[in-house]
């Protein structure tokens, strides 16, 4: 049953080639480095990554090298008729290969602890304090003053959440607090080399400083903790401005918010009680839309421009989740309204904030390729 040399050699060769392929990947493909960091903390993490990567690559090549060497050098030959030496072990080498890895991991622990301390360090007085609110399935941001009170407030004095984009001053320390009213989410910006969970009932706070040279840049961020059917689309942007531009922008937000009546968090469940409909006075225009057999009953809707309207959404599919999202221009355009996902049979009254005239698409985010329609606002 043991094969003769050619087959055996072939299998050794196959194994070696594939192992070499795998090991070759490690060094040659630049994809094994994280993106270029854009924050002070990200640079520290990137440097630590380099150290870990170097040690890991060295261990990889040495150990895989030993395995491949043994496989080639000690393959059984037809002349091997006697038993090889029956070696049961050697205490000295056991001690050596216990001590060496211990030293390596001790070093790795110390350097990563040092980096951890700089990454986790918080400033005495950060220039900007932002609260990120993560709810299924969107992000919004509140700006706080030094007294911890909201800066951007509606005429009624209530805090206004700015949806989708977090604007920060480059070169200044930003404190970010994370708040979730529903399930666990995670704030993740790949170019920060950083993420932190948004845990309901447990507010996480950390500082970061975008490099001053990155003013004018926009970074993509995304929820990194599974939060339900809309998880993959729960993204946001971080916009870095120069401190002067940031101040102007913030002032603009403050004045605008005071002027416009603050909209209710439309379509979103109020914190703590998902499933309850927001109770606000009905808008002048109400549209009916039904989902049945994984399709909308209408392919086009019309709504008045620049005034709030309601969508009375009925989900008739037993046990299936649907919602209504409104995208600008096309079904893949920017999301301007994000309705709560409901499991049929159920209904919701979505309150849509005023939209400028134009063409929009309404899409069920759970079935984004099949449940699509056109919304004309005029």
């Amino acid at each position, binding site marked *: *049953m043991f094969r003769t040399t050619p087959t055996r050699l072939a299998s050794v060769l196959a194994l070696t080639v594939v192992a070499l392929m795998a090991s070759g990947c490690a060094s040659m493909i630049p994809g094994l480095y994280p993106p270029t960091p854009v924050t002070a903390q990200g640079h520290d993490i990137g440097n630590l990554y380099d150290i870990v990567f170097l040690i890991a690559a060295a261990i990889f090549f040495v150990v895989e090298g030993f395995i491949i060497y043994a496989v080639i050098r000690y393959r059984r030959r037809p002349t091997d008729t006697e038993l090889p030496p029956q070696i049961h072990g050697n205490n000295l080498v056991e001690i050596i290969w216990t001590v060496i890895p211990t030293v390596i991991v001790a070093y790795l622990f110390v350097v990563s602890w040092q980096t951890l301390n700089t990454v986790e360090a918080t400033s005495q007085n950060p220039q900007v304090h932002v609260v990120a609110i993560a709810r299924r399935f969107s992000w919004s941001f509140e700006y706080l003053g030094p007294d911890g009170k909201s800066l951007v407030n509606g005429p009624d004095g209530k805090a206004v959440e700015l949806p989708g984009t977090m604007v920060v001053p480059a070169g200044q320390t930003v404190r970010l607090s994370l708040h979730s009213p529903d399930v666990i989410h995670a704030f993740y910006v790949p170019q920060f080399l950083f993420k932190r969970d948004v845990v309901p009932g447990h507010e996480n706070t950390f500082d970061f400083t975008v490099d001053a040279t990155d003013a004018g840049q926009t970074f993509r961020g995304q929820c990194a903790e599974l939060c339900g059917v809309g998880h993959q689309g729960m993204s946001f942007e971080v916009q870095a401005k120069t401190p002067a531009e940031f101040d102007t922008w913030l002032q603009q937000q403050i004045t605008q918010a005071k002027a416009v009546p603050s909209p209710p968090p439309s379509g979103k469940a109020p914190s703590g009680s998902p499933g309850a409909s927001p109770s606000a006075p009905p808008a002048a225009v109400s549209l009916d839309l039904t989902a049945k057999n994984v399709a909308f009953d209408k392919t086009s809707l019309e709504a008045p421009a620049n005034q709030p309207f309601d969508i009375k959404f009925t989900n008739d599919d037993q046990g299936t989740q649907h919602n209504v999202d409104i995208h600008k221009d096309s079904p893949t355009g920017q999301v301007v309204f994000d309705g709560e996902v409901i499991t049929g049979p159920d209904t919701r009254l979505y309150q849509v904030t005023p939209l400028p005239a134009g063409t929009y698409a309404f899409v069920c985010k759970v079935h984004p390729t099949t449940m699509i329609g056109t919304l004309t606002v005029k």
Partner: protein
Amino acid sequence: MATTALHPAVPAYRSGLYEWITTTDHKKIGILYVVNSLLFFFIAGLLALGVRAELAQPKVQFFAPDVYNQLFTMHGTVMIFLFIIPILAGFANYVVPLQIGAPDMALPRINALSFWMLPLGGILMFTGFATGGAAAEGWTGYSPLAQRAYSGTGTDLWDVGLVLIGTSSILGAVNFLTTIFKMRAPGLTMFRLPILVWTVLVTSVLVLMATPVFTSALIMLFIDRNYGGHFFDPATGGNAILWQNVFWFYSHPAVYVMVLPAMGMVSEILPVFSRKPLFGYKAFVFATAGIGALGFSVWAHHMFTTGAVFLPFFSLMTFLIAVPTGVKMFNWIATLFRGQLIFATPMLFALGFLTMFLIGGINGAFSAAVPVDFALHDTYWVVAHLHYVLFGGSVFGMFAGLYYWFPKMTGRLLNEALGKLHFVLMFIGFNLTFFPMHMLGLAGMPRRVADYSANAGWSDLNLLASIGGFTIAASMLPFLWNVMLSLRNGEIAGDDPWEANTLEWATTSPPPPYNFDHLPEIRSERPLFDLRHAGAAHSALPAKYAETHS
């Protein structure tokens, strides 16, 4: 060498259905475990193909997000709880009593009970698909997402199914410990136990200490969902982090439950096919115990980004657990050195285990460095890491064991050419699937997303991973063909086709009920080696080998 007088090919696998359902024979129960686990392996593999098909290209093509979330949740849950853990328990069930020279497990009826809970638990979980959707929170079932407000009946069925499977594990662990401590053959002292038996012993201790914690957490979740409990839901004053703590207090040791027996199998196979004893037997035993002990102090390394755990402690312990694992790796390699390696299929899979598990250990060290984990956590990097450990490690180890003990279980040899084809396809497919995931993770692709933007730059690597996934699936065809072929007309194996070292090869293939007619003397951890080479040791070619080699 001594061949027992019994008929060499007792047709165990042809017995009647009634016999199989009512059996308390550890060998039949072991085979039931293996077959049942392989069935769930193929089902969960199909679910993974669904995931890879969907991710091959950006945009939603095959599965809407609600279905997609069920696919990966059930894939993970089934692979871990209904495939890897039980199939290793199945091999242990078959092999451990034989290796310690016992007639059966200590508690044969409990043994049957622990097996039959598994298909029941599995079926319960899958009925979720008929009740408006199976569980869709990921195999980790994080709360509040797993609470009633966000998930349907499928999650209750998932929960109850896991309670049954957990109970099965606990009963199995009690049985293994009793068997190993009380039923060893005369002369088989603890330090003469085969390494596989040692790993099963440590695994059973882990299961016994950790699984009850998880089972109680599942019951607490069930109370939360159905009887107005407030354990894990912050909306009603509970604590979402508490679930993660109790979940990982079980599920991290569970990683060692999934890896240690595979290490044990590899430690049986490498010496046999190197024709040398295992290098550093005692170091191996201590390393296994060390991994078991340290395994209880690293659970929160799954929670570095929660902001709710003491980071330096868990970082240190996670780094430290690499030391005993490294010791094992070096001992395995030292076993190969100066040996005479025979590349039969079990050996190829064992070498696959060494080369791939090494990567799973190394890429794990990245996440032990807490700040690096801030970048990598919950991205595809972690998916790569866990598959290098559980697929590159456990599944390669499991297949090594399957090819190694198949002749003992059925009395017939598997075809070597088909076995090698299986290995090569699986090895290539595995690396194609999971290596690109390192890069996807670094580039920022989170886990558990049904879709990604075409502009993200992730499309090519995803396509590559999907091609790899289907290559792994293709590698199962020669395997299944091989099994069917061998069961019908495979070459008769004889008692000891591999020139092995341990007691299971001292009886017929398959062994008779109650296993042994008589036992050889046990004076070391390799009683059969001693028997074969008694007196004339180290001189002539063993008779058996000469016969098969010519």
